[in-house]
């Protein structure tokens, strides 16, 4: 398994070109987080502290869901259109294709969280103790987590329908337990341990650390590191599950 950077870059550029031809999807990716954040800010406008926490957490949760779908559908389409089989006859390897996708959607996620963060900060007056740069850096991993889970879902499923079903099946438990609906340390023991096994938990914890402290804490770096490790592991798994030879 070796990475060819120019093949990876060419694939990322190609995926972004495809996205550029699909304006409606781009609009959804950029606008949905803003609409949701606005609704939340109206809902919780009595409780500023809670609102700040929820808005911050949503910066990881929304890219997770949207990027999962984009990546999963993109990769399944690659397979059903026959272009994946064709790619597998070229010098491009599975890792180049998977990492090309991850790079392209990672960049889209960066644009998405930048817009959403600026909106929450300047328009909805979200308060963050730490730096906005760290908010961006951390939230992008929410998106990348979605991308890597989506690519893995596409690699192991037959068709768009199965891959789409894997989205709620794998993301909802993580969202429920990540701390969005209540602090993790108030959960029953087994729920707490279960949530410790989920990658989204660490992205959200890292974001909360940025929200709470002016300087990045060591728990912030540990949480971010665990998030990065999960993303890499999922991408490697997705590459391994993508078969060059099929029946």
């Amino acid at each position, binding site marked *: 398994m070796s990475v060819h950077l120019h093949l990876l870059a060419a*694939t990322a550029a190609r995926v972004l070109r495809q996205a550029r031809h699909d304006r409606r999807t781009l609009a959804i990716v950029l606008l949905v987080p803003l609409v949701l954040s606005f609704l939340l800010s109206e809902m919780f406008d009595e409780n500023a502290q809670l609102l700040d926490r929820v808005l911050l957490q949503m910066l990881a949760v929304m890219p997770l869901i949207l990027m999962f779908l984009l990546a999963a559908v993109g990769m399944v389409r690659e397979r059903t259109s*026959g*272009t994946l*089989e064709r*790619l*597998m006859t070229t010098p491009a390897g599975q890792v180049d294709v998977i990492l090309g996708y991850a790079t392209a959607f990672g960049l889209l996620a960066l644009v998405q969280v930048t817009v959403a963060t600026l909106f929450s900060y300047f328009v909805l007056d979200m308060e963050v103790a730490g730096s906005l740069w760290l908010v961006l850096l951390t939230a992008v991993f929410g998106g990348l987590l979605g991308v890597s889970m989506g690519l893995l879902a596409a690699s192991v499923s037959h068709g768009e329908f199965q891959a789409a079903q894997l989205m709620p099946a794998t993301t909802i438990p993580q969202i429920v337990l990540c701390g969005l609906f209540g602090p993790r340390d108030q959960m029953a023991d087994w729920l707490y341990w279960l949530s410790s096994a989920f990658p989204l938990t660490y992205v959200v914890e890292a974001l909360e650390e940025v929200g709470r402290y002016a300087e990045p804490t060591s728990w912030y770096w540990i949480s971010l590191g665990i998030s990065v490790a999960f993303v890499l592991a999922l991408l490697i798994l997705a590459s391994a599950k993508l078969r060059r*030879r099929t*029946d």
Partner: protein
Amino acid sequence: MPAATDAVVIDRLTVDRGGERVLDDLSCAVTGGRVTGLLGPSGSGKTTLIRAIVGTQRLRSGSVHVLGMPAGSAEARRRVAYMTQAASVYRDLSVRENVRYFGVLVGAGDAQVRDVLEQVGLTGWASALAGNLSGGQLSRVSLACALVASPDVLVLDEPTVGQDPVLREELWSDFRSRAASGTTVLVSSHVMDEAERCDELILLRGGRILDQDTPQQLRERTGTANLDEAFLRLIREEE
């Protein structure tokens, strides 16, 4: 015994798909620098054999070598290009973007992209979205994506289906001139009049090789006037 000039060597290849035997202990060789036609009725295993040669088919047993290298290996993939039967292109990219992407993967530049678009008669459509093209145009985009690699071995699964006669003529003369300059061209088809344009034919039926010879030899040996009859005669003889 494979000869030194054989570009593709298939040795006792057996492939199962969904519990069915599709290729059964098949051995054959494709001569380098020639146009070889792979002929057979639908369901005879043409596409499966082609997928085995480009390295995307899971094999049960046997081996496939391309230019002396295992089919599907990194070295082989640099020298083989494949056009699938259904147009495998990105419908949400323009014609040029499609060809450029498959070109970049093998190190082909913009000049080659232009040339190949000219060759398949799509220069005027370069900026059009592939999804807006007709079926025949789409399969030409797909062909261009294979041609742009300037491969040593060109594997084409039914490349001229649905093309108008003039363009078909041009494409065949392009295949012939590529072969003349050393490229090995393997073309599958179920159209017998195309078979006449090949240097050599491999006749496939029920996952086995029915015969392999030049079109002329096939006609002479079977004492028939055209390849359709020759194919029929060979099937009857076997049964």
